[in-house]
């Protein structure tokens, strides 16, 4: 390690070499290069000292030795493409964007940022926009554009999507694996429910009632803007409803601003222009909510990851940094701003055990231990962490015919550990991890907020006027 010490110490990119300059002379560093106008990844690339820790974290490289790993996809590819004779290597499309390499790097190399930009460049410059792969990826990345149609006719959509002929067609014509079952669309979206329930005005009233009951000042402004994302709107509105009930229980008025997809599937498919458009809408709407005194709350770990990390790394709309810095994971926010664990102490639910999987994008946000810690306060609930392996689906990645096998190989370890855990129900915060968990084990999968809502306000969803009961 001695040589590594010396290298790290002497060649830090921030410090120009000054060999030959006598230590007695006053040294005035001068600006040699003009200020970068575009994103400059050079300092990041120069920070890599090739320890390969990122490679040992890559779930894809572990099962597929044709994938050269994050060290190549990041700093090495970045350097190679400075030369005119090197294009982006097509293997960048095999990266699943789990972003594990980010928290692996001991040397501050922005790996996922490099992967996102390389993938974007590859798709822009080297992918035929008429190719089956491009069209398929664009459809997967823009799931939100199709979802409203399916949600308008959910029963028909669920029926058609469930047909084996649809799956066969999907695989043959588009390269979407026929091995998976499409997620079901809810018969009522969250936003439909929300509007029917009376929107923000109803939430405001409920929050005031809750504050009065809790003995707090009723005019105190406690307000959040909920970024529900696509999945809890169209597919699992019960998660979104649980969030609303939990926050209203603590006296928060919930706002549900206009929003687009968080961009996660677009980054993963190198559709940076689509992501930019979505992000622009989200930053504008969420910045407006901040103006109104709301903090931003997300229930999906990839949505919060995207807003918090990828937006500031890739875009610079007015307010991007402010939005990123004020976006929170739903459970984390309550831990910091309320006494969530104290509130949960003494609650009890019918005995149930869960096999909990922390999504990669939760891990990257320092949230990996949170669910187990918080649920530990509820009597009757027993949550078992199934370890740090990746589920393998990584959003749209595992939906692609060519990635299906890799995705299931990566997931093998998680399936084994879920099987070993003394539980028959799964638990996670990521919608696609949840699909993979269900696909690999057949378990029903829940979201942490559903358990917290059940403990705090009960499970009888239709009579949630009684939201103060159950304690």
């Amino acid at each position, binding site marked *: 390690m001695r040589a590594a010490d010396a290298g790290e110490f002497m060649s830090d990119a921030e*410090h120009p070499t000054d060999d030959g300059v006598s230590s007695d002379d006053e040294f005035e560093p001068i600006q040699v290069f003009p200020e970068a106008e575009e994103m400059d990844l050079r300092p990041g690339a120069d920070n890599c000292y090739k320890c390969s820790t990122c490679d040992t974290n890559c779930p894809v490289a572990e099962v597929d030795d044709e994938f050269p790993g994050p060290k190549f996809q990041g700093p090495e590819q970045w350097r190679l493409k400075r030369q005119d004779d090197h294009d982006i290597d097509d293997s960048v499309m095999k990266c699943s964007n789990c972003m594990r390499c980010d928290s692996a790097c001991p040397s501050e190399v922005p790996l996922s940022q490099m992967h996102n930009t390389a993938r974007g460049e590859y798709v822009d410059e080297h992918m035929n926009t008429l190719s089956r792969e491009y069209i398929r990826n664009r459809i997967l990345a823009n799931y939100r554009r199709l979802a409203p149609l399916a949600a308008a006719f959910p029963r028909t959509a669920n029926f058609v999507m469930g047909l084996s002929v649809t799956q066969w067609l999907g695989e043959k014509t588009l390269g979407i694996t026929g091995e998976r079952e499409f997620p079901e669309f809810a018969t009522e979206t969250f936003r439909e429910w929300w509007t029917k329930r009376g929107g923000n005005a109803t939430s405001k009233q409920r929050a005031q009632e809750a504050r009065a009951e809790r003995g707090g000042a009723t005019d105190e402004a406690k307000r959040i803007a909920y970024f529900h994302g696509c999945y809890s709107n169209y597919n699992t509105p019960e998660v979104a409803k649980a969030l609303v009930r939990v926050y209203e229980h603590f006296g928060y008025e919930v706002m549900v601003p206009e929003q687009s997809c968080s961009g996660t599937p677009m980054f993963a498919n190198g559709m940076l222009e689509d992501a930019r458009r979505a992000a622009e809408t989200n930053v504008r709407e969420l910045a407006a909510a901040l103006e109104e005194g709301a903090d931003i709350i997300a229930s999906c770990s990839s949505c919060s990851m995207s807003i918090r990390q990828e937006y500031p790394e890739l875009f610079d709309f007015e307010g991007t940094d402010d939005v990123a810095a004020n976006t929170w994971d739903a459970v984390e926010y309550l831990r910091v701003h309320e006494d969530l664990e104290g509130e949960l102490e003494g609650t009890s639910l019918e005995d149930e055990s869960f096999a909990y999987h922390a999504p990669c994008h939760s891990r990257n946000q320092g949230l990996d231990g949170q669910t187990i810690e918080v649920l530990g306060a509820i009597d009757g609930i027993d949550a078992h962490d199934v370890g740090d392996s990746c589920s393998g689906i990584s959003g749209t990645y595992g939906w692609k015919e060519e990635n299906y096998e890799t995705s299931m190989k990566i997931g093998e370890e998680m399936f084994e550990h879920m099987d070993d855990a003394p539980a028959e129900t799964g638990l996670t915060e990521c919608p696609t991890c949840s699909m993979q968990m269900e696909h690999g084990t057949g378990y029903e999968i829940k979201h942490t907020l559903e358990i917290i809502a059940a403990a705090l306000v009960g499970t009888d969803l239709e009579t949630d006027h009684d939201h103060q009961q159950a304690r």
Partner: protein
Amino acid sequence: MAIEDDVLVIGGGLAGATAALAAAEQDVQVRLITHKQSTLRHASGLIDVLGYTPEGDGPLVDPFDALADLPDGHPYERVGAEAVREALSFFDDVAGEAYAGAHTDANALVPTHGGTVKPTARYPASTAAGLASDDRDALLVGFETLPDFEAPLAGAHLEAAGVPFSARGVTLSFPGIVRDDAKVTRYAHLLDQNESVSTGAGETGAREALAAAVEAHLEDESRVGFPAILGDDHAAEVRADLADALGVDVFEVPMGPPSLPGLRLEDLLYEALEDAGVRVTSGVPVVEYETGADGDRIDHVVVDRTGSKLPHRADQYVLATGGLVGKGVRSERERVYEPLFDCHVPHAADRYDWFVDDVFGDQPYARFGLRVDRELRPLTADDEPEFSNLRAAGAVLSGYDFAAEKSGGGVSLATGYVAGTRAGEEGGE
């Protein structure tokens, strides 16, 4: 409100994990926060105590004989020899059968991937059959796609170093690996899952295929050494299967980074943390702190979550953020500093005095770090504790050159154990 615990350990390497485990023994709520994954992934997985004296004498037969003569300020001198023994025995309990070497005070001599011999106090069970003091002949097996271990060279180097056996090296192709720079985790995964691979003899499990490839080269050696890629989650099983198939003992030669024995040690420690009820938060840095009214105690620290500030409060704190590699100690043109609490780091004012020209010479920077009292509390330039409830452990400490002394693991264990135990005792009051 802040997220509260009794003891907060900052840093997730060997020192931090040991400190958290030791504190948890005192029946207090402990949290460990680690920014990046620990540098255990860079580590050989060997737990050395002292291989050479600070003057360069060695390899030492018995590290404990040399502890009394260490200079003032050396971490072992700070905690005392008895604490070093207690910490090792604490580690032995945590590691169980995964590690060997507890039967003696004497250093074991473990062959490395370069064909040198490293004196160490504890070693993974996977390297046990490879010790250089063992006089059985050894076949070393390297792989064409794994340039980090050149088996014939390592064998020749070992023989030149005077080991009491013959060490022959061969280079084979690894069944199932096609890519020149496949990751070490790929080799391990193939063997862990015993994936099906194609060989000249058809489809077979990776373990059988590897054994068959080696068997053709085995002469009368009674042990075979592989680079340390023999499985991850199921390493013992992989080794046993290979030994059965070959009819000889099988051992691993520790490798440079990234290192599977280091990864396995990390897994072992983090499982122990989970069992001990230690809460682990990873992937986020601690960036600031606030003191209480008197300025003498740390009231809480602040974790940065891409801009959001999360307060964490504890009664006692342990700083185990590593040295220059782990970034627990950093430098800029004018100074060397500890970035979180800005604890005093003694160093020469002129940066040209931070190093000597001989790369492998006695480098001053190798000893940069925090000076501590016997309670392991970091000291100011005036010899006063920086804070009454902060202790430091591991490579963030000054006064030793772990690379030259071969003392990195032992110092992390001993200081982590002492800092964690004291923090646990005081945090529970």
